[in-house]
């Protein structure tokens, strides 16, 4: 379990059938591990090895999808062994997104429950949640659904026992020690604390996706009165989230 803490330790390289290889840095969620995953991703993309179809960064691993008809597995493994041992190099400056959120009420029906569980007021939960700098560790589950690291540990809450069958688009939720920015409506066992008018995934907009692994995110609490205007702008294709690089 400690492997992810030791920058430079060799990751495990494992086959996922004949169409993918995964480089596993250990069963942990932490910023160092995430940085190593993203550094390996950049290095591998730069290497442009024939037969590599696409890569998917996760919390603690990088998945490399390959074309079994063209890839040279031995060359890929050798390259991954070299690149994977490198400690996380300082990355290019991440993009930082400022994401507006309406917390609580009809926008986040679990906010009061979360506050009660942690002996806080809903305002304290909002202050803690919107007071942290988050990093996108992984995009998965649904197109554009971002798993974030960096939540204040005081907000960690076990997932709901019975998942909801449908939560609205662009939900802000807490599941365990993680928080997320949703995209499309979907089932979810996470606690809904708010919603953002931002559309992380909108195929008819360019770019179709806003958040990528490695991006930083901060949340800004906004009033329900501001929702309609921002939501309409987002529906028309505006990003609504401020970005600085």
């Amino acid at each position: 379990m400690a492997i992810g803490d030791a920058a430079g330790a060799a990751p495990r390289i494992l086959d996922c059938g004949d169409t993918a290889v995964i480089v596993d840095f250990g069963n942990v969620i932490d910023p160092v591990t995430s940085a190593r995953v993203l550094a390996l991703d950049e290095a591998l993309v730069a290497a442009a090895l024939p037969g590599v179809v696409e890569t998917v960064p996760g919390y603690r691993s990088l998945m490399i999808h390959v074309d079994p008809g063209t890839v040279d597995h031995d060359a890929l493994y050798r390259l991954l062994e070299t690149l994977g041992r490198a400690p996380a190099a300082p990355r290019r400056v991440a993009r930082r997104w400022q994401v507006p959120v309406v917390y609580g009420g009809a926008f986040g029906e679990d906010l009061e429950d979360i506050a009660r569980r942690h002996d806080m007021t809903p305002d304290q939960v909002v202050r803690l949640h919107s007071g942290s700098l988050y990093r996108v560790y992984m995009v998965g589950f649904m197109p554009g659904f971002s798993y974030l690291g960096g939540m204040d540990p005081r907000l960690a809450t076990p997932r709901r026992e019975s998942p909801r069958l449908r939560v609205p688009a662009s939900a802000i939720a807490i599941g365990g020690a993680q928080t997320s920015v949703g995209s499309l409506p979907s089932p979810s066992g996470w606690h809904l604390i708010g919603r953002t008018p931002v559309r992380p995934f909108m195929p008819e907009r360019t770019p179709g996706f806003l958040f990528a692994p490695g991006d930083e995110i901060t949340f800004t609490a906004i009033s329900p009165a501001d929702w309609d205007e921002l939501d309409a702008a987002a529906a028309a294709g505006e990003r609504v989230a401020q970005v600085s690089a």
Partner: protein
Amino acid sequence: MTTLVVRKCAGFGTVQDAGRFGYRRFGVPVAGAMDRCALAVANTLVGNPPDAAAVELVLAGGRFVLADGPALVAVAGPGATLAVDGQTIPECQSARAAAGAEIAVGGARGGLFAYLAVSGGIAVPEVMGSRSVHARTGIGGAMLRAGERLPVGPSRGTAPMCLPGPAMPPEGGAEFRILAGPQFDEFEPQAGALLCSEPFSIDTQSDRMAYRLRGPALIHPGGHNIVSDGVVPGAIQVPGDMHPLVLMRDCQTTGGYPKIATVISADLPRLAQTRPGREIRFRMVARPEALAAARALRDWEQGLADALRPVAPR
């Protein structure tokens, strides 16, 4: 422009090609034809590239009308049938359909998925480089409905063709080859042995996203929730109820259950065509065998066009 009009499409008809690649890092599932071999046969018969977009039909088949122009049409899939204007077309043969022709596809009675290919390919707009429909997210469109009009691309071929001899790759029966999965070593030692020695059957609760398996419980002592990471179609993951499921083309891009094994890519189309209730077995192989099988399948696909013969006049 030639158009394929859906008259009747029972169940889960969708447009599928080889799938959507390059967007999995953003959580976009790959989707694509469940049986790429049958897709390749149907496409080759009408002069299309093997991975052109076609209509995938599940179980019951469907009825269509060709509008605004002629085309070659062909059907592939175990036991699937094709009739044009009431005339039954022999297996592994394409047929010329005039504008207004009625096209009836009988479902894949020997499997699950049938493919209706039209010369020129189904030309719905590409979304992120593919025409494959992922119904759960709405990417690429939705399930086909009666009345829907599918544009057909321009085509060169006009003469019906056939593929003599066995058009499908050699049958492997009910045995499927697997490679050890990324968490194989974390399962109880007997789990891997059970996976390869005991029969499993495909549960009715299966779809394009995953096939659930019935069989012995496979125990992962570290619990059945791991830190989520990437998954592939073919991955055999074991959730908390300890019964494995095989991820299929519509699977999500990441998953949080341990993966004991992965069905090799060459055997996945055949697994896709295996009906619920049928008994299946797994056999562990090493990577070279999986790669050889993948390359053999690719060569078979690429060789299909050379095997085409004109249909002999009656």
